[in-house]
């Protein structure tokens, strides 16, 4: 629990609060990119853009203390990384895992935003 009298803790708490409020929108952006990536023919550009977006969210969520959301995003990131490495679309099982990761992220983002 941050000490309200500590100016540094206060600054961090305010940043966290703002980040939490923005989380549903951030996850929605990732969802949109993933949907576009899965719907179209595989391209490295689209895969990398989607990978980058989810990678950023994984990193920032962890840093702001939303470690479960960061872990779910990291799981999605790994799937997209594999797609990049194999230079091809995700298989059915990976698509389901990606959808599951996104669903978890969405639930956690909603809870964080209150």
């Amino acid at each position: 629990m941050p000490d309200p009298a500590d100016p540094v803790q206060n600054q961090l708490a305010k940043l966290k609060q703002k980040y939490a409020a923005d989380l549903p929108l951030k996850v929605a952006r990732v969802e949109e990119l993933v949907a576009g990536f899965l719907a179209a023919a595989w391209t490295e550009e689209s895969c990398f853009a989607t990978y980058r977006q989810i990678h950023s969210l994984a990193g920032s969520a962890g840093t702001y203390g939303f470690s479960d959301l960061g872990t779910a995003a990291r799981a999605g990131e790994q799937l997209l990384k594999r797609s990049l490495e194999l230079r091809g679309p995700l298989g059915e099982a990976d698509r389901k895992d990606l959808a599951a990761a996104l669903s978890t992220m969405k639930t956690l983002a909603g809870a964080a935003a209150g």
Partner: protein
Amino acid sequence: MDMKALHRILMVEDEPDIQAVARVALEAVGGFSVDMCSSGREALERVKSCAPDLILMDVMMPGLDGPSTLQQLRADPATAGYPVIFMTAKVQSHEVKRYRDIGGLGVIAKPFDPMTLADSVRTIWEQEHAGSSGSRSESAG
């Protein structure tokens, strides 16, 4: 032996959310002076004017990534000597070794704890300047 003081840090990070929390972590918690850049390209331009003691650089950035930015810094005699610490989620041993091999002073893991980031930076800096062999390091952040 007097250790070179660490005061001014140039942070290179494309993600605004990370920039915001890192600034608090380094300035308010760590007492450093921080200049912020959003890309490797911007860092190459800014480094000469802000003359940092240290560059803290994200690895994965759009355009010029961290390792490529370091390579370009090293290629210019005017910027070749600036020490760089990388920040990355990729901290498997072979990845850390690669960042050290290309000239990174050390690696700080992402995600990081805002309350301990400055300590992690200071630890890597002090290890390097204490001159201990094999001192290049990885920190949990």
